[in-house]
């Protein structure tokens, strides 16, 4: 079958090139549209030793104080969502690399491979990703706050993530027509890889730019070094 050869051959290369070129483009675009700026030094309390210290009302090192502060973070306010999204993103990024079949294909074509887990373990990881997708879907439909900002593209995004995992596990266990399943798996995987730097998945790149490079209220690390324009 010609079309099958195409999606298993040149199309794979094309989607990876698309991904790397797109990512490079986004990073270059960011650097050319932003300018470097020094961050204002963060406020630091000077310890003036000559002044008599006032008694501390709050013990900022105590466990209870730290716990109270932790409860104010997004992990403390919405632990279910944060736990799910952490597990989701880790398994999502990890699983494709440790699937045995992927590593065999990699070894055959390029002579490299990553460590693989047993088939049962990979099945579990795939089911975790799918379960997280179901959780996000349920949250979208049931939580009024999330529903208020949901657009059709959010459902498409979830579908695009779930499709390669679902078709992959079905093909692996020969459920349904194998040829159709494996083609659907390859195509949906390729579509997702190509879409990463251009669609809503752009958050994969911009998470790091927003949180570590741009200067704003919530910058992590050293506090950022660039601003827009």
């Amino acid at each position: 079958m010609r079309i099958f050869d195409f999606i298993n051959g040149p199309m794979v290369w094309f989607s990876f090139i698309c991904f790397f070129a797109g990512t490079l483009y986004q990073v270059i675009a960011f650097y050319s549209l932003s300018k470097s700026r020094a961050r204002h030094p963060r406020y630091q309390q000077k310890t003036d030793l000559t002044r008599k210290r006032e008694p501390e009302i709050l013990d900022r090192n105590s466990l209870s104080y730290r716990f109270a502060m932790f409860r104010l973070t997004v992990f403390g306010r919405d632990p279910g969502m944060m736990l799910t999204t952490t597990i989701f993103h880790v398994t999502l990024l990890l699983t494709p690399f440790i699937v045995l079949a992927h590593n065999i294909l990699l070894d055959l074509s390029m002579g490299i491979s990553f460590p693989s887990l047993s088939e049962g373990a990979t099945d579990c990881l795939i089911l975790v990703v799918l379960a997280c997708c179901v959780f996000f879907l349920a949250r979208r439909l049931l939580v009024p706050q999330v529903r208020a900002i949901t657009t059709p593209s959010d459902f498409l995004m979830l579908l695009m993530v779930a499709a390669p995992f679902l078709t992959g596990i079905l093909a692996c266990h020969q459920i349904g027509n194998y040829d159709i399943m494996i083609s659907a798996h390859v195509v949906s995987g390729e579509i997702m890889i190509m879409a990463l730097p251009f669609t809503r998945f752009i958050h994969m790149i911009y998470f790091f730019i927003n949180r570590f490079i741009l200067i704003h209220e919530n910058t992590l690390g050293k506090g950022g070094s660039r601003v827009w324009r």
Partner: protein
Amino acid sequence: MTIQNPPEIDSRKIREILWERKKEVVVSLKSCAHCALCADSCFLYRCRKNDPKYMPSHKVINSIGTIYKKKGKVTRAELEEIRDIVWKRCVLCTRCYCPLGIDIPSLISLARQICRSQGVVHDFEEGKIE
């Protein structure tokens, strides 16, 4: 006394302001996962009994998001609605927290700038007792 008709909305001017910061607006709107995790960080949202209309992302999507989607071709009525969002539902306290690092106050202030350029501004005398 004659009541002057308000001038037409100058969508070219709006586009000019918007285009200067196009990439910032586009990637912010695009990378927002619509996850509502920012909701709890806005004190106004919590004062208003968790009304979704006060969520930071809701305010961004319905102000600068609308203006961008219409490429600046908004009517005066729409712009007045946006004015009420960006002045009455947000005080630009910069305390909102988005895990993806979207700079919400910066986008809201851009929407305010666009409203101001069309003379659509918050009436600070509103409700004042004469």
